[in-house]
């Protein structure tokens, strides 16, 4: 993650994992949210090497739903292709439309200490907001 990006897991729905991600731009906040998903999935995200790339692009009626779709795309790629992915570059343009480059590798149980099998990102408490210091993306992962 770049210097302006961060995330933390916070108290949320009792069964699940909620997080708040921060970035200087909407794209950076989305990228930090993607890193939060990776941190929910694997104990040490640094063990996920950048061996393969995927690009995704889609639009939604608003930023909240764009975040929801982005996170659910990461869930899908984990199950359908066994891929653990770092968001390398995420751009959110007017529309809103998201264009992201993701880099990572297939799950290797010998090297990756796996944690939560996230079922889905949910719309519960979902928000993407501009703040004094940049942008925050809040979401809850159903585990």
């Amino acid at each position, binding site marked *: 993650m770049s210097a302006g990006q961060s995330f933390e897991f*916070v108290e949320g729905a*009792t069964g699940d994992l909620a997080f708040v991600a921060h970035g200087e731009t909407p794209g950076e906040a989305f990228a930090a949210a993607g890193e939060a998903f990776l941190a929910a999935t694997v104990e040490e995200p640094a063990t996920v090497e950048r061996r393969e790339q995927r690009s995704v692009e889609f639009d939604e009626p608003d930023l909240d739903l764009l975040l929801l779709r982005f996170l659910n795309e990461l869930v899908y790629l984990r*199950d359908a292709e066994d891929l653990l992915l770092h968001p390398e570059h995420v751009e959110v343009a007017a529309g809103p439309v998201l264009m992201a480059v993701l880099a990572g590798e297939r799950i290797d149980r010998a090297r990756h200490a796996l944690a*939560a099998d996230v079922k889905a990102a949910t719309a519960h408490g979902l928000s993407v907001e501009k703040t004094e210091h940049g942008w925050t993306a809040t979401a809850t992962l159903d585990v």
Partner: protein
Amino acid sequence: MTKAPSLEQVRPGLYELAPGARKGMRVPVRVFATEKLLGEMDEKVFEQAANVATLPGIVGASFAMPDAHWGYGFPIGGVAAMDPAEGVISPGGIGFDINCGMRLVRTDLTWPEVKPRLQELLAGLASRVPAGVGGSGFVRIGRDEFRAVLLRGARWAVEAGYGEPEDLRFTESGGCFDGADPDCVSKRAIERGHRQLGTLGSGNHYLEVQVLHDSGIFDAHLARAFGLDRPEQVVVMFHCGSRGFGHQVATDYLRDFLHAMPKKWGLPVIDRELACAPFSSREGRDYMAAMCCAANMSFANRQVILHRVREVFSRVFGRSAQDLGIRTVYDVAHNTAKLERHVVGGRERELLVHRKGATRAFPPGHPELPRDYQATGQPVIIGGSMETGSYVLAGVETGAVSYYSTAHGSGRAMSRTRARKSTSADEVRRRMEQHGILVHAASDRGLSEEAGFAYKDVDEVAEATEIAGLSRRVAHLVPVANVKG
């Protein structure tokens, strides 16, 4: 009633929030709980149950079971019945893990026989039933064959050699929901799920070896009828669902409904996770057909897992599964919507009953029960935390007040984040071993998040269902080995 001042006690075990408590409520909220459990429920339960009470076509009341806790859209432990003509179907009333459910399996083995082999048994179960993130099961089938799974559920599994025909008799709906249509399922759902048959998943999913001590028997007659019929009997219980396939079905339709609600049907979006569609609409019927596919995948998953359990026990004890008396007591779904017939206002009518984190609990004599359970009522399985044990109960006639629904587990009392900050996996492991419970966890983080103190008191939950007249206690089962997802 510290958290819900407008909740009135109706009778022991039942509290009510009147329809005027929140704008738009069409029916009251009814919460089944003891005073202790009510006081421990987070405020969101009442807010979410009140939101459910606003849904078009809801009949009778919006219910919360004694183990209710904060969910998405509906509370977990939420039950609502809709008029099929006027009402809606909501993925948030079913959950992402469609037909997440429990299976209880009895054996002829006793604790003194199993204890010396427990470590070997646990290792065998952990290696033969994959748990944790993603994961592929041992069942290798192509996408076309997977469609047959979606249509036939546990019947497919038994026909493929993964079980006995009598397993189907002891599975809710015979292990197959009618009305499944794979054409209503996205390619993405099939891509996520077709390799996952035979896997547990993670979160609160588990496979447990348990013991029924004499002190755990509440009703010896019913226990015997359920096959719980010998001192220090060893049983197996597991909890899992439709895996990535069902999660993707829920994700797909939630998104579609959110887009269509205001534009197409003029329905307000109170809570995005309460997205819904008129049940009579094409979209509503398509979701029902897709949901049935996911329910069937889940029945097949638990049937295939039972096959592996039989293999492991057979290998460890050097006897056939049949000789070991390994038989399904019951397999019951938690997260579904079903068309059922219930009496409302003295008249029998068809209703679409949503149960999210709630167990169907049919009474004695119900036509959908197998002949073996006609006199007893349906077995109900309430899974507790991995440190505290679980319950077997039975459906009762007075359960009509909740459309024959009861609790499904002990219900979380603490968030995963807080549980993880409160203890370590090593501490949990050490504490469990001190209590004589061996554990094999797919993830250390998952183990600490599932610590016993993160859950409500399962004894209180089981008792609350009895006080409220939803189900009656039959037996308490004590864990001795746990494969944690």
